[in-house]
């Protein structure tokens, strides 16, 4: 992989520490603060839309293979060549075969996380095809040799000065470090690539199963150009992008754009219904759709099915306190932020990627609250923490048709008063937690021993007494000592010590009639 290392480190912990120690990155990330309220804007401007969208997404997931077949039939009827790719390798092979058959040499790309998943730009360039990212942010990270750090704002980790430095490597002279000047230069520079391209590569925000419509959402207009100018278009479409009906766009489109950028609608929504038709003078003569599975359909019917409802709006990244500090590259994965922490280990066919990501969350629930399609991200993170310690845990869990664990009927709130993550009856809790045994690691032994002791009142009393006596002897409530087990705490914060007298001992004193307790 040619992607440069931007935030070095062997673990999320090391990379996070490096990201936080990078003052320029920290300065750049403050620019994201303006996106913090997008979730609230959705709630204020589009009441009820979240519920409808969540239900629509689950409707397709409930029969994903069926909707995919319907989408394939509709696309084929429009004259689109549909391919199914199980793995990134399959997808690359299919696309390179098309390129070779059509003698394609110059590709322009619009933004697509699916093409990041399959490292398509590298594959095209390896086959001698010039491939240019045309979304401005994507172009910047491509020139820098990096990955996008945010799925909506790919170069959010860079300051204007850094961006000017990056783009100057492709310019004839110095570039101004202002957004107008850099944008104008990029427009002129990329214009020539658009006009010369014979291949347009896009993703898809949605594909309607009834009409075969491929929907692209952009603000720059590069999606339109990628499908209008080149002779051949290839859309790489992850399988969960399929929606049941064209009419569902009425709900999903405004929800996507408002969650992503706070706009009621993006500047350009491009709806493609097959290649150019008889008598038309532009648009792709040949249109291919590559349906990318990459471990997705195996999640259907598992506790993690909800993750496939994701519409890639980035709202969970914008509100995540951890993401806002460490930025996307610290995750060392295609997808970052809360959804990336869940999706990366789930998509890892080898089962090796992103296993430490779910730990790097405060479980504050801001992501669950922000998610416009009601994915219980914080719950999924907790469940993953448990399941990733169990062998083969990300494989489908047994029997999705198993009777529901809970009816969730215990609290009767009106829909308006519902709390984040409560709205949708997620599969994550229809399957029992800990459905398979975990191996006895040191960590598990420690937690089990602790729980066994503390599940008994006398065990709790005896085990806490020693700590309190030590603390009484010290006569202090805070320590700076780097004690084993709390080192990561005391490196950065004073650590609290037990009070000399616990609440229960003071309560006992009161029960004995003491006035001051």
């Amino acid at each position, binding site marked *: 992989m040619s992607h440069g290392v931007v935030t070095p480190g062997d673990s999320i912990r090391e990379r996070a520490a490096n990201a936080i120690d990078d003052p320029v990155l920290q300065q750049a990330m403050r620019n994201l603060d303006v996106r913090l309220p997008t979730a609230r804007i959705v709630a204020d401007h589009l009441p009820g839309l979240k519920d409808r969208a969540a239900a629509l997404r689950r409707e397709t997931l409930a029969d994903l293979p069926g909707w995919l077949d319907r989408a394939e039939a509709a696309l084929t009827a429009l004259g689109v060549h549909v391919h199914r790719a199980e793995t990134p390798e399959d997808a690359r092979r299919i696309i390179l075969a098309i390129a070779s058959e059509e003698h394609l040499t110059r590709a322009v790309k619009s933004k697509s996380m699916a093409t990041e998943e399959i490292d398509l730009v590298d594959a095209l360039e390896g086959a001698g095809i010039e491939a240019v990212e045309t979304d401005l942010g994507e172009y910047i990270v491509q020139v820098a040799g990096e990955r996008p750090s945010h799925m909506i704002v790919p170069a959010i980790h860079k300051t204007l000065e850094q961006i000017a430095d990056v783009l100057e490597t492709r310019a004839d002279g110095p570039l101004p470090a202002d957004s107008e000047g850099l944008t104008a230069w990029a427009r002129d520079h990329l214009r020539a690539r658009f006009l010369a391209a014979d291949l347009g590569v896009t993703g898809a925000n949605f594909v309607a199963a009834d009409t075969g419509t491929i929907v692209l959402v952009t603000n720059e207009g590069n999606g339109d150009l990628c499908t209008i100018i080149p002779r051949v278009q290839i859309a790489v479409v992850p399988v969960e992008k399929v929606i049941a009906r064209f009419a569902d766009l009425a709900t999903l489109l405004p929800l996507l754009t408002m969650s992503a950028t706070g706009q009621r609608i993006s500047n350009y929504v491009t709806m493609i219904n097959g290649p150019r038709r008889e008598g038309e003078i532009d648009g792709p003569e040949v249109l291919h759709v590559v349906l990318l599975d990459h471990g997705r359909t195996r999640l259907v019917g598992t506790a993690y099915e909800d993750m496939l409802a994701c519409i890639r709006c980035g709202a969970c990244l914008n509100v995540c*306190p951890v993401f806002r500090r460490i930025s996307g590259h610290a995750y060392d994965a295609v997808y970052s932020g809360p959804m990336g922490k869940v999706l990366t280990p789930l998509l890892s066919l080898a089962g090796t990627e992103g296993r430490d990501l779910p730990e790097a969350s405060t479980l504050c629930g*801001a992501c669950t609250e922000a998610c416009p399609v009601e994915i219980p991200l914080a719950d999924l993170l907790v469940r993953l923490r448990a399941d990733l310690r169990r062998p083969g845990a990300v494989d489908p869990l047994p029997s999705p048709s198993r009777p529901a664990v809970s009816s969730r009927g215990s609290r009767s709130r009106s829909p308006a008063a519902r709390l984040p993550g409560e709205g949708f009856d997620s599969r994550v809790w229809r399957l029992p937690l800990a459905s398979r045994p975990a191996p006895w690691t040191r960590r598990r032994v420690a937690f*089990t021993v602790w729980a066994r002791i503390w599940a008994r009142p006398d065990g*709790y009393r005896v085990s806490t007494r020693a700590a309190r006596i030590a603390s009484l002897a010290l006569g202090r409530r805070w320590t700076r000592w780097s004690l084993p087990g709390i080192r990561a*705490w005391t*490196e950065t914060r004073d650590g609290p010590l037990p009070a000399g007298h*616990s609440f229960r001992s003071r309560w006992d004193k009161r029960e004995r009639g003491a006035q001051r307790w």
Partner: protein
Amino acid sequence: MPDVALFVTCVVDQLVPEVGVSTVRLLEAAGCRVEFPAAQTCCGQPASNAGEPEAAALLARHLVEVFEPYEVVVAPSGSCVAMVHHWYERLLSGRDADRARALAAKTHELASYLADGLGTIDVGATIDATVTVHDACHGLRSLGVRDAPRRLLAAAGATLVELPESETCCGFGGTFALEHGEIAAPLADDKLRHAATTGARWLVSGDTACLLHLEGRRRRTGIGPEPVHFAQLLASGLPAGAR
């Protein structure tokens, strides 16, 4: 005069018992008779969040058993109450899950119990200070606790200044604070810096663990107002002489 069983939480019991004492004083000021079931220990959240649901279930089952006989359970922690509400029925199965649901239905976070459950906005305390409120995450997002502490503090005469990004996490996150100090500390800095801009004397919140994390950081940097549990601050304004 409602009977209330105090679920004091292990953090308060062991680390800041003053919060427990203040909770009792507030509940009594609001006319409750407080009982303290001595067999209670910990809700099990550290194990649950660490991905050790079996260990968490041991503690959950114990807590359910301890509080089953009581009518109303109140805790000075949004997070521990959220654990009971959101997680217990999922950690336990069968009849235990039913018992967990029954416990959740009668378990309340302190501020919302006073303000919403009892309708007691004025507990008779007087606070002459400027305060700013941090909405601790689990109370806010799992229980919907937002206005209650503000209303109680305002009724006591405190001057409330809104905290910028009051709903953003302080970086504690349970085991996260122990395992990811590199992120937890800067998030505490953000919170303390925001609090410092308000000019408040106190940074008030409803979860002791978050407050200890913030105070631990503040003791290193000297930035920001003193973090304090709202129960402790509010009870400090009660007239002397309450038992």
